[in-house]
């Protein structure tokens, strides 16, 4: 009995694996970057509020 050529399915499996992993890692990176931006914006807003309070 000869070994069947199932390399198409192997390539399909590994391609899928690396695509999903890349998407997940990218999602972690993008979410972190967006939250950092939010944090910076909120911190500057808080600083502005503190300054206003001090003036008044």
């Amino acid at each position, binding site marked *: 009995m000869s*070994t069947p050529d199932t390399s198409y399915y192997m390539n399909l499996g590994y391609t899928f694996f690396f695509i999903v992993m890349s998407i997940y890692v990218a999602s*972690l990176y993008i979410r972190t970057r967006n939250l950092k931006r939010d944090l910076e914006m909120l911190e500057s807003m808080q600083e502005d509020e503190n300054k206003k309070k001090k003036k008044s």
Partner: protein
Amino acid sequence: MQPRPIALKILDVVSIIVLAISAYLALFFAPTELVMGDVQRVFYFHIGTAWVGLLGFVIAAIAGISYLVTKNMLWDRFEVAAVEVSTVFFFITIVLGSVWARPAWNTWWTWDPRLTTAAVTELIYVAYFMLRTGIEEPEKRARFGAVYTLLGGISAPITFMVIRLFRTIHPIVVGSASGTQEKMGMTGDMKIAFFFALFAFTVIFVDMIWHRLRLSDLQDKVEQLKLKVSM
């Protein structure tokens, strides 16, 4: 946010290296299986992702218990991280299994006990995130999450054990097969690729959990600051 610690940077590099080695062992080092051909090489990543997927669900259940006992939100963040990373890995497991099944069983999917319990487990944890987003109050959300993962965690050992308890066409890799069940035999080189994949995915899992935990910390800070600014 704290800068990325040195240990995490090292773990990132190690994760990439072990993933590359594991892919090399699976794709080139391990011999071609005579009956199934090259598609059998999918098995190394299929088992590796299944291992960390199920491990993460059990860890999430333990984190849930820890939250219920201590009421410390750190456990809730840990639980979310474990569930999210494991859901991604377990999704990959199911799809890789389906890709393997097509040439081996001549079908992409069959309602075999192992495949069914795996699909149910995945859906339980997809629903976890959908339900969590519906709860506004952080403590109520954490309490709900803890109880949910505690109950959901039961599905992980069931999925692992089901091929040993019921008649199934899914091959047994760990442990001994009985009756009509198929036992997957491995040569020495296959075992090296297999055990290295388990090790590699454990390292990658820890790395991803750490990154996801840092993301949760950041989310918490932003939420708290939003409340302060809006008051």
